[in-house]
């Protein structure tokens, strides 16, 4: 009895503190006086600390009526977090969203229509890989922010030591060179088993796709003969190194693996070179770039055009200040700066000429000519959230039957893309 009343008192005390904790919450804009504070969510890896400081200092000097509060978010688990923010009454004012996910948010009705700002931002010149996904049913919800596509980052010294003088231009040359490099404790290439963006490129090269639209309905297409050929090539090149068959480029972080100095090549955006040198300064000046080789020498391999759009939630209480921010970040000055410092493709075609001269960005630009996007459906984000493609890759790489594994993955993709119709 004594014990029980003690327990009750303890629980009561606990629940009291819990309730008290719920009561306090930050106070935000005081609508009337002083500068507006806007909350901005940018994604990890989208800006460097240096760039962010330059930008915010300049912004603070120019726009004294707007105060910036930039938060950097992790990619992992971002979907539910953004959906939660869009549904809340205290949403951030600007959110950076991946171009494969923006359609989902646009379709939800929680994002502000920015079609009337398109002319002001010279939207006719936007690159298609960002403007297209940001457009839903003829309205522009996502403002193109930056793009990037994958290239091969390689060690010039290891290539020279193996007697390879020019970077490979076809798949055959690439396989031969990689096999040559894959000796003496070095990995020819570090390709984790679950990099599905790389696989998508190989599949597009063969003329296949991840999913196809059949009338109103989508269908997973990994089991098509073309897509299976793409997976077969992935398996061949993946075997020329020790990339884990059961995880992706984030686990472990592939730039860190590369920085240990035992890897001759990896597939990443050119900006990754910066992270490698940061982790291992000895590799400075030893890194080179070439476009992912295609089936023939005259055309580089197809690549996934990755990138981000900026959106303004309907729930934002300062949409005008939010637009002021977007106009700066998506405008010429900072786009050129961002593209140079982060090795990105700027959001407008006309700006591309201002960022030439860098080996990484020119390799990226060569590949970008053959850039493609994931299926343009609001539900594509659901596919990535569950990602059956990664599981399919692991299955095939560990000796499973490709056709059966592809059919299983297709069934999940089909279900996800047609869900909620």
């Amino acid at each position, binding site marked *: 009895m004594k014990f029980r009343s003690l327990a009750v008192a303890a629980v009561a005390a606990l629940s009291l503190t819990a309730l008290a904790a719920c009561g306090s919450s930050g106070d935000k804009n005081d609508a009337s006086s002083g500068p507006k504070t806007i909350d901005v969510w940018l994604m990890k890896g989208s800006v460097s600390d240096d760039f962010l400081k330059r930008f915010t200092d300049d912004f603070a000097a120019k726009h004294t009526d707007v105060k910036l509060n930039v938060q950097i978010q992790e990619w992992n688990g971002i979907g539910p977090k953004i959906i939660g923010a869009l*549904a809340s009454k205290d949403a951030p004012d600007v959110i950076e969203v991946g171009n494969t996910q923006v359609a989902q948010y646009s379709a939800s009705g929680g994002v502000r229509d920015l079609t009337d700002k398109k002319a002001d931002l010279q939207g006719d010149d936007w690159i298609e890989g960002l403007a297209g996904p940001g457009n839903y049913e003829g309205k522009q919800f996502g403002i193109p922010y930056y793009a990037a596509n994958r290239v091969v980052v390689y060690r010039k010294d290891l290539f020279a030591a193996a007697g390879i003088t020019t970077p490979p231009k076809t798949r055959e040359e690439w396989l031969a060179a990689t096999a040559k490099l894959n000796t003496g404790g070095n990995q020819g290439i570090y390709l984790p*088993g679950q990099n599905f963006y790389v696989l998508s490129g190989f599949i597009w090269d063969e003329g296949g796709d991840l999913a196809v639209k059949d009338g109103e309905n989508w269908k997973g297409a990994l089991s098509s003969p073309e897509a299976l050929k793409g997976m077969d090539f992935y398996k061949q090149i993946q075997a020329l190194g020790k990339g884990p068959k059961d995880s992706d480029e984030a686990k472990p972080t592939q730039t860190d693996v590369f920085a240990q100095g035992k890897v001759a090549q990896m597939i990443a955006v050119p900006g990754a070179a910066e992270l490698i040198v940061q982790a291992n300064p000895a590799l400075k000046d030893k890194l080179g770039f070439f476009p992912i080789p295609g089936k023939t020498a005259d055309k580089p391999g197809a690549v996934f055009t990755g990138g981000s759009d900026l959106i303004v939630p309907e729930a934002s209480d300062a949409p005008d200040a939010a637009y002021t921010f977007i106009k700066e970040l998506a405008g010429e000055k900072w786009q050129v700066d961002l593209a140079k410092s982060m090795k990105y493709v700027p959001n407008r075609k006309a700006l591309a000429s201002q960022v030439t001269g860098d080996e990484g960005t020119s390799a990226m630009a060569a590949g970008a000519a053959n850039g493609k996007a994931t299926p343009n459906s609001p539900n594509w984000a659901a596919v990535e*959230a569950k990602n059956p493609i990664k*599981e399919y890759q692991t299955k095939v790489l560990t000796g499973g039957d490709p056709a059966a594994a592809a059919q299983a993955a297709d069934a999940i993709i089909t279900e*996800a893309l047609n869900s909620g119709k």
Partner: protein
Amino acid sequence: MALAQLERTAPAPEPDPPARARRGRPRVLPYLLIAPTVLGMAYLLIYPLIRNLVVSFQKFGIAQLIRGGADFVGFDNYRAIFTDDKFWSVVGRTFAFTAINVVLIMVLSTLVALLIDALGKWMRFLLMGGLVLAWAIPVLAATTVFQWLFQSQLGVVNWVLVKLGFTQYDGYAWFADGTSTFAIIVIMIVWQSVPFAALTLYAAITTVPKEIYESASMDGAGPVRMFGLITFPILRPMFGLILCLEVIWVFKSFVQIWVISQGGPGDATLTLPVYAYQIAQSLNRYDLGAAISMVTVLLLTVVLLAYFRQLFKEEGEL
């Protein structure tokens, strides 16, 4: 309540204060003490449960979440999940998963409890310390450690196996195969559950009078018979209680499975709680997810009823 309070605060002369409590007139203080708990529970458990129930009868996707205005669709969501073969295979897997885990936990923790009882002072101290440590590690931390143990390239399990001469395990991907992923999750959950069950059973075993064992051994009973005829019958309520608690704990385990495999590969480790979360968060079908979790709640309630029955029976005995 308010009236009773007024009456209470009125300084009326009480002829016989000790007799008052015995007559059982309402007392306010106990209710006041328990009110925060009840309110907290209502807000954190009952409100979400009711909300979940409502959502399970609506069409509720990402658009309804953000803009509001969800329509009621009757039993459509329940019809959708009950006619889906996948749902039934998940239900079957959940029960099989629970059964395997609980049997292993009960057997191992009983053996460990008997071992603690039989050990000398120092070894007992050491073993109990180990159990408490294993129990004290947060679930998420322990799960991450297991993930690292079985990592294909850098994991210590593959390293040991290769050192022992099993070279086929060089870079072996444990989590690519359904059966091995399932087995690893079972090992992990059993490892996380045994300490609590073993320590509780050990505490119970110490309450059995030693004289009974002494006289039994004089009559020539071996350890197995002594357990079967003395320990187990005396501690049956305790075994029943632990069994119920472990069933609940295993049935609803989510973190371990989600972190390790997210229900994969394929559907190999997809149990009801993981399935509900996957449908709601990955497909953004909050309505279907709500229906699945309502079914999960109902299934668990059946187990809980058995648990409460046990609890009340025991209180009657004490």
